[in-house]
């Protein structure tokens, strides 16, 4: 499903005409089916408000969203069908678990959408398998007795069980240890490809954004201040720093090398392997 936003505004305190405090201000974006976009910005920049528009938890006060066949404006009704298509994984999604068994928790979403019987069963099984959770062994266990990383996986599976076509991930790796974090991101990449999802990825970790996404929107004070292909956006080292954001590790390293006069090329973000190769080349060049 493609997502188009046209001049979307949202203000928290509608009655307050004097205040210029917009949750989000004149946001327009166009996201093609099957792409992964990154949303970055410091705390309070409007990322979460924007994400909550995608499945109409907030309705735009001005402007409209087009999500697949759905057009959402301030008067939209029948949101259930939209919410079926847009899966939201909030920060610390394990806080939403409430059922006695993992199976029942995963069933909550699909049941709300009217699924039952074999359909329900296969939706749950599919979601658990995609999240690498052993269906037979785990379905009757309580979600509360799991480790943090496993709980997170169950919570994300409970969203996947609704078979969404768009997945919104709001800091999905917050608070996880490095291994769980990498495992989860790898898993999310393979799920995205398998299910052909359109993914919105909100994160403060620039390396993760560089790794996962193709296109990046940078937000500040409810506005989009910078957007573009991930390679292009992360070249804007100074702009990002002025917005209290960082750049991927590789760009940081290249900049230091440049300051010391041993590197002259562009500040491309790159994977660590490529960075190592580049530095190795420089060193060899020096040795010659």
């Amino acid at each position, binding site marked *: 499903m493609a997502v188009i936003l046209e001049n979307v505004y949202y203000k928290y305190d509608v009655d307050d005409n004097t205040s210029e405090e917009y949750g989000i201000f004149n946001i327009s974006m166009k996201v093609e089916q099957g792409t992964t976009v990154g949303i970055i910005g410091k705390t309070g920049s409007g990322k979460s408000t924007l994400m909550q528009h995608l499945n109409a938890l907030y309705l735009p006060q001005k402007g409209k969203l087009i999500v697949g066949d759905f057009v959402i404006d301030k008067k939209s009704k029948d949101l259930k069908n939209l919410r079926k298509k847009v*899966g939201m994984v*909030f920060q610390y999604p394990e*806080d939403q678990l409430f059922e006695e068994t993992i199976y029942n928790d995963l069933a*909550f979403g699909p049941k*709300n959408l009217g699924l039952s019987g074999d359909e329900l069963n296969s939706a749950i099984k599919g979601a658990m398998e995609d999240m690498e959770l052993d269906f037979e062994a785990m379905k009757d266990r309580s979600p*509360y007795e799991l480790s943090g990383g496993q709980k997170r996986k169950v919570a994300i599976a409970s969203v996947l069980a609704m078979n969404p076509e768009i997945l919104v991930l709001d800091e999905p790796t917050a608070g996880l240890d490095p291994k769980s974090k990498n495992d989860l991101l790898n898993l999310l990449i393979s799920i995205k490809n398998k299910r052909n999802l359109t993914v919105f990825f909100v994160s403060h970790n620039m390396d993760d954004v560089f790794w996962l996404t193709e296109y990046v929107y940078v937000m500040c004070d409810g506005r989009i201040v910078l957007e573009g292909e991930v390679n292009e956006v992360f070249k804007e080292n100074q702009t990002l720093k002025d917005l209290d954001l960082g750049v991927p590790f590789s760009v940081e390293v290249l900049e230091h090398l440049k300051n010391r006069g041993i590197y002259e090329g562009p500040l491309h973000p790159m994977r660590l392997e490529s960075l190592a190769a580049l530095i190795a080349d420089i060193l060899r060049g020096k040795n010659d």
Partner: protein
Amino acid sequence: MIKDITIGQYIYKDSFVHKLDPRTKILISMFFMFGIFLINNITEYVYVLLLTAMTIYMSQIPLMKIIKGLKPILPLMILTVIMNAFFTSGTTLFSWAFIRITREGLYLAGFMGIRIFFLIIFTSLLTLTTSPITLTNGIEGLLTPLKKFKVPAHEIAMMMSIALRFIPTLIDETDKIMKAQKARGADFESGNIIKKTKSLVPILIPLFISAFTRADELAMAMEARGYRGDEGRTKFKELKYRLADKVILFLFAVLLVFLIIRKIAL
């Protein structure tokens, strides 16, 4: 949506009423409460009205705020008035089928209405002019003499201030969980009362779990900072009765004693 709830809506102003000792304010509110039920003629209620108006004026709280505060109590007021009007025996003024309205009933209903009205205004003035923390300090101060009778004054006050402190946190938490469940297709608005109540389970369970986790963490943080209850604990802001407190307490006490004696004598 859920953020509109306000509890103990303190408004900061630099007024005479704000500066009074919280114990004074709690005590005179109680005196006022008793006093109001000992009065039963219109002229004296006019005096009460003047007193209330003067207090509001001195507190610098906008009148609209106070009137707004009356709104949620309105159904209770109407119910009390109706109950009193219908179920008091005496000289019948009007009767139809099983309904009988008596002269005494009407009087009583009128007075009850007026009393509740004043009661709400005066007590909301208390919470409007006293911050929750000061208020719990005041309650602790008033309960301290009861420690001799094993009343855990400090613990009660600490529990109250912790509860007040966590109201906004819990509201935020509820909001967040509600959104997460809504995103999973939960529906909190439609259906009959049983269905609606059932739909709250997915909110309440996560909310309770996080509240218990928080309580655990808070207890640990307090212990880590050396909290051992009341013993040996000093105060940053000591409560102290000033001259104004003493005068006002004295006046209210005299007034209440007078009203009680008059009630007994008559």
